C-alpha cells in the first residue's frame, strides 16, 4: 500500500494542487522512475559518503598542522594509511553517486516560473553553491590522485576550506528538504510520488494530493533497478580501485591508479628526485647538519655507520595508496638527544629538494618512534626514495616523510 504523508509530517503538502500555466516549449518530464523516494535513498547514501570523506579529510589535514598540545599519535602505525585510503576510495565512489543523485532531481531545475519568489532565488543560489562546490571538490580531488593539476590554485588549502562549504551547503540543504527527505525515506520505493518539473504541491496527481494511489507503472527500469544498477557500478569501481590501499586486492585493481608493489624497492614514489631537482651531483658533498643546544655535523660515512635501527613502518600517501615497508636507519630521537634535545622537543626536518613540502615538524609520540632511514626493504635508499636520508614515522603521511634530508633543527 502507498504510504500517504500526513499533514503533520508534510506541513506544506496540503497546498491546493493546481499546476501553474507555463509555455508549451518549457521542458517536461514524465518518467515515473524519478521519485522523492528514490532521491531520498540516494541522498542518504551520499550524506554518509560525504560525512566519511569529510572526517577522514580532517584527519588528513591535521597531518599538515598538528596542534602543539595534541601531537600526531604514532599508533596505530597504519592509521593514516587506513583513513586516507578510505578518504580517497569514498571520494572516488561519491563522484558517480553524486551524478546519479543529480539525475534523479534534474526536473526540479525546470520549475515554472523559474524565479517565482525571493525564497526560490535564494534556494537556487544555494543549490548552485552546493552542486558546484561538490562537483569541484570531487573532481579536483580525483585529479589530484592522478597527479593531474590543471587548476591554478594550491590544492590543499582550497580542498580543505571548500570542504566546509560543501558540508555547510549539505547541512543547509538537508534542513530545507527535511520534510521531503522524511517522506521519501518513509514511503515505499515503488509507491512514492513521481518527481517531475511540477512541484508535488502543485501536482494534482501526486499521492500527496490524491491520497492512496496504485504505485506508478515504470515501463522500463524500476526504481529498485536504478538503485541496484547504481550500487553494482559503484561497487565495481570501489573494489577495482581500492587495491592501491588494500594490497591483497591489488591484483584485481583494474581501476587502481597506483600499483604500490610495482614501485622501486617495492614502494611507489610520490615526488621524484628529478621533480625536486635532486641529482647525484647535488648530493656529492652531502652532510647532515644537526642544530640545537649542541650543534654538530654528520658525514655520509658516519650516518651509514650508525644506521643500525630497524622498523617495519607502513607508508600511507595523500593520494590514497599505501604499502608496508621495512626500514633501517638511525633513531631520530638519538640524533636529537645528541644535539641537546629530548623526547619533548619539537624538531624541524629540512630537505635539500626544491618545491613541494621541503620542511616538516615532528614531535610527540612520532618523534620517539621516527627513523632517519638509509635503507628500504633491505636495499640502500634509491635517489627517488630520498637518498641519502629520509624521515619515516608510524602513522605519518608520506608527503611529510621528508626526503633528501640535509638539516635537522631542535626548536
Amino acid at each position, binding site marked *: 500500500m502507498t504510504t500517504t504523508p500526513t499533514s503533520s509530517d508534510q506541513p506544506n503538502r496540503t497546498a491546493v494542487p493546481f499546476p501553474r500555466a507555463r509555455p508549451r516549449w518549457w521542458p517536461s518530464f514524465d518518467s515515473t522512475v524519478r521519485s522523492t523516494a528514490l532521491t531520498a535513498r540516494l541522498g542518504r547514501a551520499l550524506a554518509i559518503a560525504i560525512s566519511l570523506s569529510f572526517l577522514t579529510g580532517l584527519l588528513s589535514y591535521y597531518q599538515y598542522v598538528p596542534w602543539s598540545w595534541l601531537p600526531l599519535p604514532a599508533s596505530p602505525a597504519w592509521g593514516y594509511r587506513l583513513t586516507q585510503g578510505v578518504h580517497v576510495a569514498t571520494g572516488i565512489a561519491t563522484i558517480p553517486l553524486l551524478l546519479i543523485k543529480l539525475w534523479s532531481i534534474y526536473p526540479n531545475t525546470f520549475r515554472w516560473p523559474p524565479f517565482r519568489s525571493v525564497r526560490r532565488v535564494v534556494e537556487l543560489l544555494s543549490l548552485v553553491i552546493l552542486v558546484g562546490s561538490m562537483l569541484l571538490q570531487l573532481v579536483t580531488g580525483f585529479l589530484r590522485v592522478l597527479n593531474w593539476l590543471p587548476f591554478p590554485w594550491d590544492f590543499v588549502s582550497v580542498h580543505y576550506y571548500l570542504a566546509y562549504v560543501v558540508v*555547510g551547503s549539505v*547541512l543547509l540543504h538537508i534542513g530545507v528538504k527535511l520534510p521531503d527527505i522524511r517522506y521519501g525515506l518513509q514511503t515505499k520505493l515503488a509507491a512514492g510520488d513521481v518527481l517531475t518539473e511540477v512541484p508535488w504541491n502543485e501536482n494534482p496527481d501526486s499521492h500527496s494530493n490524491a491520497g492512496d494511489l496504485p504505485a506508478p507503472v515504470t515501463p522500463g527500469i524500476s526504481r529498485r533497478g536504478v538503485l541496484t544498477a547504481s550500487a553494482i557500478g559503484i561497487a565495481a569501481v570501489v573494489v577495482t580501485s581500492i587495491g592501491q590501499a588494500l594490497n591483497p586486492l591489488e591484483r584485481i585493481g583494474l581501476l587502481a591508479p597506483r600499483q604500490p608493489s610495482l614501485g622501486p624497492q617495492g614502494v611507489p*614514489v610520490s615526488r621524484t628526485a628529478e621533480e625536486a631537482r635532486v641529482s647525484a651531483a647535488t648530493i656529492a658533498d652531502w652532510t647532515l647538519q644537526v642544530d640545537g643546544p649542541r650543534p654538530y655535523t654528520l658525514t655520509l660515512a658516519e650516518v651509514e655507520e650508525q644506521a643500525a635501527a630497524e622498523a617495519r613502518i607502513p607508508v600511507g600517501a595523500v593520494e590514497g595508496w599505501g604499502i608496508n615497508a621495512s626500514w633501517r636507519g638511525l633513531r631520530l630521537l638519538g640524533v636529537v638527544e645528541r644535539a641537546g634535545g629530548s623526547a619533548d622537543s619539537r624538531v624541524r626536518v629540512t630537505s635539500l629538494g626544491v618545491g613541494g613540502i621541503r620542511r616538516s615538524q615532528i614531535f610527540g609520540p612520532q618523534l620517539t618512534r621516527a627513523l632517519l632511514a638509509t635503507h628500504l626493504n633491505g636495499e640502500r635508499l634509491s635517489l627517488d626514495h630520498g637518498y641519502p636520508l629520509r624521515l619515516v614515522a608510524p602513522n605519518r603521511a608520506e608527503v611529510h616523510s621528508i626526503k633528501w634530508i640535509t638539516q635537522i633543527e631542535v626548536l
Partner: protein
Amino acid sequence: MLIWRLVLGILGVLVLVYGLVNLGLHIPGSTLVWVAVWLVAAVIIHHGVVSPAVIGVSVLLRRLVPDRGRRYLQAALIAAVPILVIGIPMIYRQGSQPPSMALLLQNFTANVGFLLGLIAVGCLVGYAVRVARDRSLGRG
C-alpha cells in the same frame, strides 16, 4: 521537525560561512576568481551538457527499445556510468607519469572495456533468462 530544520539550517549556514570566509582569508583574490569560475563551469557543464545528453539518450531508448529489453539496457548503462566516469580520465592520463610513481601504468582502455563487457554479459544473461521465463509462462 521545525526544530531540526532550524538547527540544521543554522549549523549549515555557520559551517558554510566559515568555509567561505577562510577561502577569502587564505586564498588570493585572483585565485579565488578561478575557483569561482571552475565552480560555476562545473554546474553549467553538468546541467547544460551532461544532463541533457543523458535525457536525450533516455528519450531515444524509450522510442527505439521495447520495454522488456530496455530495462536491462538501462541497468547496464547506469552500472557503466561509474566505471566510465572514473575510467575515462585514467585512460586519458595513462602512461603520463614517471614509472617510479607506479601511477597509471595499466592499460586502462582494456580494463574499462573488460569491466563494461562484464556488465554487458550480466545484463544479456538477465535479459535471456527473462525472455525464456516469459516464453515458458506464455507471455512472450
